[in-house]
């Protein structure tokens, strides 16, 4: 079986209007992939920037996959939330990006979006907070029912992901 090591960090986020942010992340793969070691999903700490506007998480990611096929290449999906001083959480953006497929270190900037509701819900979100969220998390990384959504842009999540590939040449894949 060919093996893929995804080793890196979710560095932080910029461009969000809210300041105390945390990120829930997960990695989705196809059926032919098996996770040998590492944790497939997690949540970062809440970070409040003191200097500048980038919220830094430096959240480590270390995953070891084994696979028999290229279909279902891993995708990293992210949900950025903000937390206010009362402890309430509000959605700031959803985003996803594919794990790179060439070995080495890559800097990724993942743009995010959030669902907009009706004008009433937007007004309520400005005053009271809250706002619509996705019912099924897989819409973040699949294109299936996206045409139903009306969304607005959120900020950008910055990641540094390193990739190590092993035994791909046995299966005729050049990398």
């Amino acid at each position: 079986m060919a093996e893929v090591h995804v080793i890196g960090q979710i560095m932080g986020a910029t461009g969000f209007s809210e300041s105390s942010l945390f990120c829930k992340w997960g990695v989705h793969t196809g059926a032919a992939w098996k996770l040998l070691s590492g944790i497939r999903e997690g949540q970062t700490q809440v970070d409040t920037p003191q200097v500048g506007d980038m919220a830094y998480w430096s959240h480590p990611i270390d995953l070891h996959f084994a696979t028999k096929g290229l279909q279902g290449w891993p995708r990293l999906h992210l949900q950025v939330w903000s937390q206010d001083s009362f402890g309430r959480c509000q959605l700031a953006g959803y985003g996803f990006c594919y794990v790179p497929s060439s070995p080495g270190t890559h800097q990724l900037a993942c743009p995010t979006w959030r669902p907009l509701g009706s004008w009433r819900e937007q007004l309520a979100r400005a005053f009271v907070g809250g706002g619509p969220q996705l019912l099924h998390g897989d819409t973040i990384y699949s294109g299936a029912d996206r045409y139903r959504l009306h969304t607005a842009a959120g900020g950008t999540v910055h990641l540094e992901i390193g990739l190590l590939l092993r035994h791909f040449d046995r299966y005729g894949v050049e990398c």
Partner: protein
Amino acid sequence: MAAGGPSVFLLMVNGQVESAQFPEFDNLYCKYCFVYGQDWAPTAGLEEGISQITSKSRDACQALVWNFPIDITFKSTNPFGWPQIVLSVYGPDVFGNDVVRGYGAVHVPFSPGRHKRTIPMFVPESTSKLQKFTSWFMGRRPEYTDPKVVAQGEGREDQPS
């Protein structure tokens, strides 16, 4: 490429903790340590170190320079658990107590060659205002009992920073 069987590889890391930018603090020292998975073991060099105390330079960039050497070699059979270097920076507060000014961690680079990494530092924050005041007053900030937790992903959701 050799087929079958686990093969051992060595990773040699040498470099320095060059400098830091901390706009609000001065007279800082840093400690580094390495966090790695179960398949890794250091074979040569030092796993931890404490630097000197340094003051800010007088020019516009206000850099805190340590130029502190790092030299370690690891032996492993598996890239999982690739080593991370964890840095903790400490300095005196208004009352003279030694408090933590930042924690940060980064993976050792994968590819051979010369690399420069700039690491953002964060400090754990108490969630209650009263605790923030008493910690400022008593000089006892929230601090990690083991700085190595900074290199792990689990359990971070309960720590504001």
